[in-house]
């Protein structure tokens, strides 16, 4: 039990630090501080230009959407990076249990995504004078955490896939774009074409974004609880998918030595 807990916390943090090579200020500041703010501004102005929606709508949508960047890329990197470093085989040769091993890596990633989304929201408050009532903040922080959890779930699944198809960065970008278009980031699901909305409701973010918008409009945590539970369900869905894939690839690689092939 204690071993598993250590693998979860200590191992997770260590591999996050060693495999996510963005942790230099030169990369961190532009990509995780400047860019989310710019995305929020871009769409808020697009909304103003088009005369559709209000600033708050875009601030929440895009701040949460950008949380997907660290979630997808960092989670992907902690798995794919091992392959580049040829260390995955070494890790898999240890007796450590796989579930705490890989889930442990997601915890720092979730924190990272949460932080990025909050930066985006604060930027909206400061730069666009979006007002969010003070009593809504605690519930909003929870909703953001749920959003970044489900994105990290998707990141885990993506990381597993990149073990076999490489090009993790491309995948991360593609998924990010898919979320941007389908998850109700800039156009709420009910205003999207039906087929797009249907896809969106099975993706991370869409429920959390809707919940967060509700919270910012004064709804309580209980009122949006159903949406957040749906979002958590999606998080679990993708995380389980990722773990199953990892398991499958591990077994398969033992049979056919596919893991260390570059």
């Amino acid at each position, binding site marked *: 039990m204690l071993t598993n807990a250590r693998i979860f916390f200590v191992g997770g943090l260590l591999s996050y630090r060693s495999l996510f090579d963005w942790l230099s200020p030169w990369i961190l500041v532009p990509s995780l501080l400047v*860019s989310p703010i710019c995305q929020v*501004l871009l769409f808020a102005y697009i909304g103003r230009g088009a005369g559709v929606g209000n600033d708050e709508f875009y601030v929440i949508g895009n701040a949460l959407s950008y949380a997907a960047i660290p979630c997808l890329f960092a989670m992907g990197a902690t798995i794919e990076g091992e392959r580049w470093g040829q260390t995955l085989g070494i890790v898999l040769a240890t007796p450590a249990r796989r579930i705490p091993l890989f889930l442990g890596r997601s915890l720092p990633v979730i924190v990272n995504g949460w932080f990025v989304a909050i930066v985006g929201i604060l930027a909206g408050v400061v730069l666009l004078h979006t007002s969010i009532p003070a009593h809504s903040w605690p519930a909003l922080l929870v909703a953001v955490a749920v959003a970044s959890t489900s994105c990290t779930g998707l990141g885990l699944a993506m990381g597993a896939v990149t073990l076999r198809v490489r090009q993790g960065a491309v995948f991360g970008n593609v998924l990010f774009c898919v979320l941007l278009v389908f998850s109700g980031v800039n156009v709420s699901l009910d205003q999207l074409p039906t087929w797009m909305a249907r896809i969106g409701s099975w993706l991370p973010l869409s429920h959390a974004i809707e919940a967060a918008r509700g919270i910012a409009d004064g709804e309580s945590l209980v009122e949006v609880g159903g949406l957040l539970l749906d979002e958590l369900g999606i998080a679990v869905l993708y995380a389980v998918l990722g773990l199953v894939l990892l398991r499958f690839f591990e077994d398969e690689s033992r049979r056919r030595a596919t893991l260390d092939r570059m």
Partner: protein
Amino acid sequence: MRGVLRQLWVCYRIQLKVISSDWFDGVLAVFFPLMFATAALLVYRVNGDPAAMQYVGLGAAIMGMWTCQGVIASSLLSRERWAGTLELVVATPVSMTRVLVPTTLALSTVGLYCVVATYLWERWVFGLELQVLSWPLFVVAVLLTALTLATFGFFLSVTAVRYRVSWSLGAALEYPGWLLCGFVVPLAILPAWTHPLSWAIPTTWGMAAVRDAASGASPWSNLALCAAVGIGYAAVAAWLGKVLVESARRHASLSLR
């Protein structure tokens, strides 16, 4: 002179081969801006005003060019550094300008491909048919926008000789460029202090010229400004290239990865 033109032409063709031979990169260079264009179109579509759709449709088509140049150009030399070819290129007797200009022109060519792809996407997926009153002027405006964007990319890429993290700064330029060049947001609604920034980018003028040509107005004054700003960047970049290569020799920053 003929020798120089030949060198530029051969390097352009070979660099185009390098860029276009990676399927993933190619798709991404088009896909990423295309998805943002889609998001913008979806927002504008909510009201469905045809004039607004024409506005955003034209802007979205040019948006992709910015990504190809602004983002990829600044990571260009980082890639050369990573592949170990940067030192070899600097060790040749030609100046950085003659190495970089054909490369950024190759990127602009990919950018033109982006324009066509977005145009078709708008037509097929959104059923949006752009109204272009003068096709010849429209094409001239798009080409000049691509050309001046290449000089701007040249300016960005040259800074990477000395600073190896400039790729991340380049990536961070993507959104500001989309905001400042007036692709999908009318410049008039941006805060006044950002206007000088917009004017300093040749693409802003290029975009305005493209809109002029589409609406039947004369694009020539905007094209002249676009060319002037573009030439300005080329001159600064050529000078900067010299200085930064010297500085790289002094500080041993060429081979660092």
